[in-house]
């Protein structure tokens, strides 16, 4: 009985993190902390989920604008597409980013509610991007359903 209680306590403690999500198809969990989950595919494509506590007045529009500014104006990535996710729940940016002499697709979703901000990133080579885009959208949808809604 004592062991069961301890086990349950440990399980509960382990589940306390903000990024306890199942890896989508084609990805494995490489590393996880309380706020960051890192997943990789066999072709070296990468998914990363980052959690941050939201601030007062931290609307989706606010986070979307500051991310867009950082990624396009400071990092110099080329914005290919920007679309809202589930109306005001989030935004998805599709960008092109040169890396190691190749062109990479870099997609960033920002989901927010009053308390949380989730940033989900996908980095993949052009050739395999479409293959992983579905996994990325599945993960974004899961986070939306489990945490944002």
């Amino acid at each position, binding site marked *: 009985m004592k062991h069961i209680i301890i086990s349950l306590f440990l399980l509960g403690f382990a589940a306390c993190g903000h990024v306890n999500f199942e890896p989508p198809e084609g990805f494995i969990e490489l590393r996880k902390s309380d706020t960051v989950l890192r997943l990789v595919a066999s072709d070296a494509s990468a998914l990363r989920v980052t959690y941050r506590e939201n601030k007062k007045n931290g609307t989706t529009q606010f986070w979307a604008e500051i*991310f867009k500014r950082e990624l396009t104006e400071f990092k110099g990535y080329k914005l290919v597409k920007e679309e809202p996710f589930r109306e005001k729940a989030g935004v998805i940016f599709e960008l092109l980013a040169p890396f190691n002499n190749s062109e990479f697709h870099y997609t960033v979703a920002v989901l927010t509610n009053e308390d949380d901000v989730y940033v989900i990133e996908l980095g993949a080579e052009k050739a395999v991007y479409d293959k992983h885009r579905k996994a990325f959208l599945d993960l974004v949808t899961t986070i939306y359903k489990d945490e944002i809604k």
Partner: protein
Amino acid sequence: MKKYLCVLLVSAGLLACSHGGAGTVPRPMDTGARTLTADTPPSVVPAAPSMDEDATLMAQRAPAKPATPATPPAANGPKEAETASDATPLTRRLIVYAAALSVGVFEPEKSAQSAIELAEKLGGYMKSRSNNDVVVRVPAEQFFAFVKELEAYGHMASRVINSQDITSQFVDLTIRLNNLLITRTRLQAILEKARNVEETLAVERELNRVSGEIEQIKGRLRLFQNLVDFATVQLSFFMRHGQSSVTPNPVKVDTPIYWIKRFDVVTLFRN
């Protein structure tokens, strides 16, 4: 005693003649003047045997800018020679240029190599290289063109350009050299008239000291001339990530939320 005085006076007169007069400006200053005034005709200002090598060296390195010819001083004697030195027609300032540039590029290795090739194309050379940190020397007249070309390589993260005016130091050294050469000639004359071993040794000691100083100053003048002729540019190329290497990002206020800065493809793939 009178005879001795007469001989001395005659020698002094001869000595003075050999260093003065129109068209016979003291040699070191000739060198300086020629260096600074590249178009001075050799017939007007002949080069001294002792400085021939330096004069040639400096003349070769002399910037191509046109300059006014040196005006030959008309007076005689050591005093006049000094005046001639002071009146050196400095037609341009002697400026030492140096720059330290830090450039964000997509391919640092290639950019470093390309910068070296550009420097060589402009008549310069590579001084040192450590990975993607390069030090090149470029002809002073090509300095700003070189920096401008580098701006097109990528995002110029930092650019420090320094200039140092060494005209007065150069002139001071030239005057000192001039005076030392006159002193040496005098000492040589005195040495010829030495009457005993003691006198000979004493004069020779002084002659050695003066000759040593002359060589030192010549070396420093050559160094100055080289620093003026070739600007030193320190380049540091680092990997940047972004869409275009030819459109530099305008300087803006940094993102106030620090953790947002961590989002990019580099950190995404690195962890």
